[in-house]
């Protein structure tokens, strides 16, 4: 076996570890990116190994673009959480003020 086959396995495993362990949104985005990258490398290697490089490249392009989509979704969710984090203490303060009255 060519040792380069261990690269997608390592990337996938590291991404999975990060996905389980990391608790911040940016950490999760990086972890998913690692997994997507591993899948893309695996597709390219499989295409070359099977003698169908075009198929491997096409599927890898799809996977890379899917990775871009998840990154966009991740940023959107992170931005939403930022606004919610700013909003929540204000709401709590308002409730406290009403209780005081």
């Amino acid at each position: 076996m060519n040792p380069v086959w261990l690269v997608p396995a390592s990337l996938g495993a590291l991404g999975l570890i990060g996905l389980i362990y990391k608790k911040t949104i940016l950490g999760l985005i990086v972890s998913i990116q690692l997994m997507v990258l591993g899948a893309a490398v695996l597709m390219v290697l499989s295409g070359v190994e099977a003698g169908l490089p075009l198929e491997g490249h096409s599927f890898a392009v799809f996977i890379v673009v899917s990775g871009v989509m998840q990154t966009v979704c991740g940023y959107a969710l992170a931005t939403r959480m930022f606004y919610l984090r700013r909003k929540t203490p204000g709401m709590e303060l308002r409730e406290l003020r009403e209780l005081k009255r």
Partner: protein
Amino acid sequence: MTLIVSMFSILTVTAAIVALVLSDMRKVIVASWVTGMSAGALFLSFGAEYLAIVQWLVTTLVAISFLIYASLFGGYASLDARPKREKIFDALPAAVIGLSFFAILTFAVLGKSEALVGPAPDLGAVGQSLVEKHAISLELLGFLLLAVLIGAGVISRAEVPEGEESS
């Protein structure tokens, strides 16, 4: 395996480990960028020039957007407030599951051939393959991208205070 492929393989995995281990987001972004760039170099080594360029562009744009996001919304600050003991407790199952995943994937590729050389398709052939063989998938991907962009715009809109909604 050629020297260049081994070098970039090691660099890819090392940078990925660094991105996973560090907690400083600025360093994680740089390590993640190095991972993507060296993976692009791996694509180039296996004749996927088009994919390599796409990967480099995507990785760089994602890294820049990380920096912009972190500067705007304070993403550099560590938001992981778990105590050290809890972090170690969380790391154990993650490591076990990740290593199992690695073992399964390694077992799956055990029988693969040593030689990884073949004719490198040119850009025209890749484009023709995408349009002719995977036309529906390509259309679906474009539609999904549009939907994601619209959805992301809706989700990430700024919160308007209740009193200012009518004005």
